[in-house]
């Protein structure tokens, strides 16, 4: 920073450095992105983020689809102060941008989900350490994102990452990883191929180093739009790429990258389960409140999830209130969440890639009290997984790449479906909005995806249907010509009504679309035109 401010570094040379430290130049100002490894925070860290929002920004922060947080209005000269404040709670912004291995993401229910082989954060942390200031892989052809899930149910979107890792057990019962490589969204969306069905856990880093080395040497550098690993993998084919990695790996494996068991155990200890109480599966107080309080009951339907420990629940906090900005939280809200986590939730908070927060370990008997605290902080939206739980990029309001606004579209859709009973009747529906083809809002994998495009200076929105980021990953199909800013909300409503009219009992939007195909939806959207 001193070298930049003194003029010793010009912007051209400063850019890759500021990017590697999370500082972007946005439409209106610099933006600072802070790393939240695998989306895990404690109350002390959350309070520090709140303080930064209050002191250096405009009183709020924006949680991202990479489980990080962004501050949109810091002054460049104050960035070193912010970084110093972060360092006091062992946080930083290193490798949250730039052409390096980015902050590693993981299942936001890690350590609490009933269906996991192992807590994926243990190896996400192994990867984080290995990739931090990696001397060989800090100047890759393009950015590089790794996601890890510990369960068969994929909540980390591993099929659309540069590398996706799914923990599983082989026939002998040993834990390891299925390795997916070359998935991604952006202007060339691809569901990545599996290049290795089973990688022994102990050999993870040598295998990753082999993948990265092949990519660093052979990935395209002539065109930034063709530089992601997915383009390399697609151009040679998954099988050939797997063979190239295998050859490099055979030369690398068995070396000092294999972590000793004691070291893995040392890291695992940081992710040990908190001391759970032996509780009955049912809590009468909780059941009574659910019976008495209709709002609470409705919130429980969408925002509570099964916990591995009897008598506990995983609790999602929606950052998608009607009319709000998806992923935004005020300093006061961050502090409220930190306080609830400390009092009721073993001091653990998670950020989900769907831009919500999670309290992973709440006793059933405390759920009502936590809910009341959330409602008081304006965080009571009962819409997790519903049509108004929208993923949206910042869009033209903030981003200098965008072609169209995203946030106002998300707000208008959420307002149209503001009736919660209606949302609950519609059921699970993942709606994702991107303001340009770079697809930061993941529209390709939305059950309904919306892409902002520029047509002769006006904002238009192209709709895709049938995408999914889960273990059944698929890319959405373009349904037809794009809609204007004024018409796109009507179009979404038409799609939803078409589904409601045609669904079978218990069938989600995505399932209905997969059964029916695009025809009835197209008919409903374009018949009158």
């Amino acid at each position, binding site marked *: 920073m001193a070298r930049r401010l003194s003029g010793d570094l010009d912007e051209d*040379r400063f850019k890759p450095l500021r990017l590697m430290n999370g500082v972007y130049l946005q439409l209106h100002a610099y933006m600072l992105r802070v790393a939240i490894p695998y989306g895990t925070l404690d109350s002390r860290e959350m309070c520090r983020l709140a303080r930064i929002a209050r002191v250096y920004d405009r009183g709020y922060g924006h949680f991202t689809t990479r489980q990080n947080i962004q501050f949109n209005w810091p002054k460049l000269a104050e960035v070193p102060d912010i970084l110093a404040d972060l360092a006091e709670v062992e946080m930083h912004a290193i490798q949250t941008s730039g052409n390096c291995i980015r902050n590693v993401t993981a299942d936001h229910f890690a350590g609490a989900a009933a269906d996991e082989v192992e807590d994926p954060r243990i190896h996400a942390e192994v990867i984080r350490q290995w990739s931090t*200031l*990696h*001397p060989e892989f800090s100047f890759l052809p393009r950015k590089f994102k790794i996601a890890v899930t510990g369960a068969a149910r994929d909540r980390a979107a591993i099929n659309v990452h540069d590398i996706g890792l799914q923990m599983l057990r082989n026939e002998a019962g040993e834990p390891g990883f299925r390795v997916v490589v070359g998935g991604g969204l952006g202007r060339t969306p691809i569901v990545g191929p599996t290049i290795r069905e089973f990688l022994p856990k102990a050999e993870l880093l040598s295998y990753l180093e082999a993948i990265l080395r092949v990519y*660093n*040497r052979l990935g395209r*550098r002539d065109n930034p739009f063709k530089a992601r690993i997915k383009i390399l993998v697609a151009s040679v084919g998954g099988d050939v790429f797997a063979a190239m990695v295998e050859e490099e790996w055979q030369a690398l494996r068995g070396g000092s990258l294999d972590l000793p068991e*004691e*070291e893995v155990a040392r890291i695992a200890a940081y992710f040990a389960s908190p001391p759970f109480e032996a509780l009955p599966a049912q809590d009468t107080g909780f059941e009574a409140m659910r019976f008495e309080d209709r709002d609470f009951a409705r919130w429980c339907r969408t925002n509570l999830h099964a916990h591995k420990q009897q008598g506990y629940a995983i609790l999602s906090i929606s950052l998608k209130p009607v009319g709000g900005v998806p992923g935004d939280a005020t300093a006061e809200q961050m502090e409220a969440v930190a306080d609830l986590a400390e009092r009721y939730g073993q001091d653990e908070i998670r950020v989900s890639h769907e831009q919500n927060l999670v309290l992973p370990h709440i006793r059933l008997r405390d759920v009502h009290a936590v809910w009341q605290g959330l409602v008081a902080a304006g965080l009571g939206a009962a819409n997790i997984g519903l049509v108004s739980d929208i993923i949206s990029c910042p869009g033209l309001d903030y981003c200098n790449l965008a072609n169209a606004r995203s946030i106002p579209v998300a707000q208008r859709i959420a307002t149209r479906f503001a009736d919660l009973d209606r949302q609950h009747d519609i059921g699970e529906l993942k709606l994702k909005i991107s303001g340009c083809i770079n697809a930061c809002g993941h529209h390709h994998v939305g059950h309904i995806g919306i892409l902002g495009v520029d047509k002769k200076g006006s904002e238009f929105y192209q709709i895709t249907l049938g995408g999914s980021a889960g273990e059944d990953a698929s890319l959405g199909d373009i349904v037809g010509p794009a809609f204007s800013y004024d018409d796109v909300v009507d179009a979404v409503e038409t799609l939803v009504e078409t589904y409601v009219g045609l669904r079978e009992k218990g069938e989600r939007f995505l399932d209905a679309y997969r059964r029916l195909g695009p025809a009835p939806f197209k008919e409903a959207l374009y018949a009158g035109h």
Partner: protein
Amino acid sequence: MPVIKDGQLVEDDWTFMPDSVPLDEVSRPVISLARWQGESRALRVRNLRLGLRLPNDADPAAVGAELHRFALIELEFPTFRDGRAYSQARLLRERHGYLGELRAVGAIGRDQYFFLDRCGFDSVTVAGDEAELARALEGWFEAMAEISVPMQPASDRRPPASSLRERRRAAAGAS
């Protein structure tokens, strides 16, 4: 152009010779890979002290066992964003056992020095007036001191954090 080597600014005594220029004119010529591949028999007979410049898309395995003939290998950084030569350097050191001098040439600044050192480079070219050269050298020392313990093994001798912990555990177990 001077180079930073072993923490000192030294005058470069190697000269890159374009393929068409005879090698007699300098005492320490650096040749292209294409020239080596085209004239290797003649060059071997002449028993010259040679340096080799590897283009950054070349596989070090292409030179194979003959790598040890070269007292110096130069790896290219056409822009400082182009990181291919870091992989080449580690392959040369760790896979091919190259023990000669590894030099980084091209667009390199202070923010690359630590990574270069970790990947097995011995020297980097620097450009500019006297003040700029002094700043580059100062930057080199800063870069070497900035990170006390790396997080992963590479081509240098710095033990990564995990192996330091392992040693500590072993020491505790032995006592």
